[in-house]
């Protein structure tokens, strides 16, 4: 563009206008102010650590609250056999289910927090009843390991429709559940398990038929450790019964003791 250089030179020569000194001063002062008040000099020094600390505190608090607070809804998963739509469960299983439902119903009447936080356990008859009685009543169930994981009953799942004759069975199991927490004599236990066996006999199923011989053999051969454990205390109860007026109960109890402990020496005055 050298051909146009005279034009530039002429125009520059005649163009000397400049801004007023006031404007110059104002602009320079603004530039200095901007430099002196550097953006966020103080603010940025604490902003990031403050934000990091706030995030940390919020996170820890949230985790602690989640650990302490109860879950908003009870777990819906269930591995309980009650959730399985079996066509015809055996009566013994029905008794267990009915007992579990009964316990669940009782717990629902308790405060909501307890019902939500305490898992509903399937009853373990072998842990409640002594050896001779438990063998007869819990034939299919007693095979389950004692340390089985807790079973959560689904609160929303409706129970399967009971088979015919289940009302009576349900009533019996409810009575049994009501009596379970009371101290029982061995004769009561045997009679109760006898009732369960009778209930099982009312509605026999193939599974119950298979389980019956096993239950009988277990009743005939009680566990040796339970013999050792309960013989002395049983004798104490027998002694108490003998002194009472209920001779019929004493006789039955003594007979049961002799069956359970055939080799155990009895007092000479009996």
């Amino acid at each position, binding site marked *: *563009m050298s051909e*146009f250089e*005279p*034009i*530039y030179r*002429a*125009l*520059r*020569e*005649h*163009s*000397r*206008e*400049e*801004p*007023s000194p006031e*404007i*110059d001063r*104002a*602009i*320079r002062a*603004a*530039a*200095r102010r*901007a*430099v*002196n008040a*550097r*953006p966020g000099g103080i603010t940025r020094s604490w902003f990031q650590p403050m934000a990091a600390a706030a995030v940390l505190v919020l996170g820890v608090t949230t985790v602690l609250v989640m650990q302490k607070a109860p879950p908003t809804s009870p777990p819906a998963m269930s591995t309980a056999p009650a959730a399985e739509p079996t066509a015809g469960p055996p009566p013994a299983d029905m008794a267990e289910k009915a007992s579990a439902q009964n316990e669940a119903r009782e717990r629902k009447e308790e405060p909501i927090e307890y019902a939500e936080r305490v898992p509903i356990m399937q009853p373990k008859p072998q842990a409640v009843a002594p050896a001779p009685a438990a063998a007869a009543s819990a034939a299919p169930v007693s095979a389950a390991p004692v340390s089985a994981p807790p079973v959560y009953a689904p609160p929303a799942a409706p129970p399967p429709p009971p088979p015919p004759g289940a009302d009576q069975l349900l009533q019996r199991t409810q009575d049994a559940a009501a009596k379970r927490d009371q101290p029982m004599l061995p004769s009561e236990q045997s009679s109760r398990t006898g009732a369960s066996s009778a209930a099982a006999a009312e509605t026999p199923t193939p599974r119950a038929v298979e389980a019956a011989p096993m239950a009988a053999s277990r009743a005939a051969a009680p566990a040796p450790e339970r013999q050792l454990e309960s013989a002395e205390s049983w004798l104490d109860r027998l002694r108490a019964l003998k002194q009472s007026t209920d001779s019929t109960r004493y006789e039955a109890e003594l007979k049961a003791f002799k069956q359970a402990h055939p080799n155990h020496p009895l007092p000479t005055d009996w």
Partner: protein
Amino acid sequence: MNADPSDHTLMLRYQAGDAAAFDLLYARHRGGLYRYFLRQVKTREIAEELYQDVWTKLIAARLSWQPSAQFNTWLYTLAHNRLIDHYRRDARARAVEFESDDIEQLHAPASRVDEPSVQAQSREAAAALQSALATLPAPQREAFLLSLEGGLGVAEIASSAGIGFEAAKSRLRYALNKMRLALKAYA
């Protein structure tokens, strides 16, 4: 060894907090930018207002300046955008119409203007040049002023005005040809 630091260096120093660097930078570009506005708006007051706005915006946006960008181009891009805003707000503001009184008032005394004959000649030439400049279409005038006052090349003019390279080149060439014809009449 070059004693004068470049615009680039001065702007980096100002970004780092050196206010003296801004003073140097400002001294270099104050006249050109002021005349850029003065030739395109109607009055001196408007030119001063726009001029001050551009420097204020530059100060506020100094941290966003990228060293890869030429300072000249950045400065005149801000000026172009401010001028467009002014045109949009005031639809009546069109090309600069210099009045005879304004020309005498605007011209600062130069080295040769002390001589009466030169002063008269210069006054006539200045009036002729300003008249020729005022007759240019606004886009050509802006391209010419960006080249004259900002010292921008064709590519920088295109970047500052937001147009293509060929358009900038064409505008500048048309403007220079018209100015050359105007100068010939007073040569």
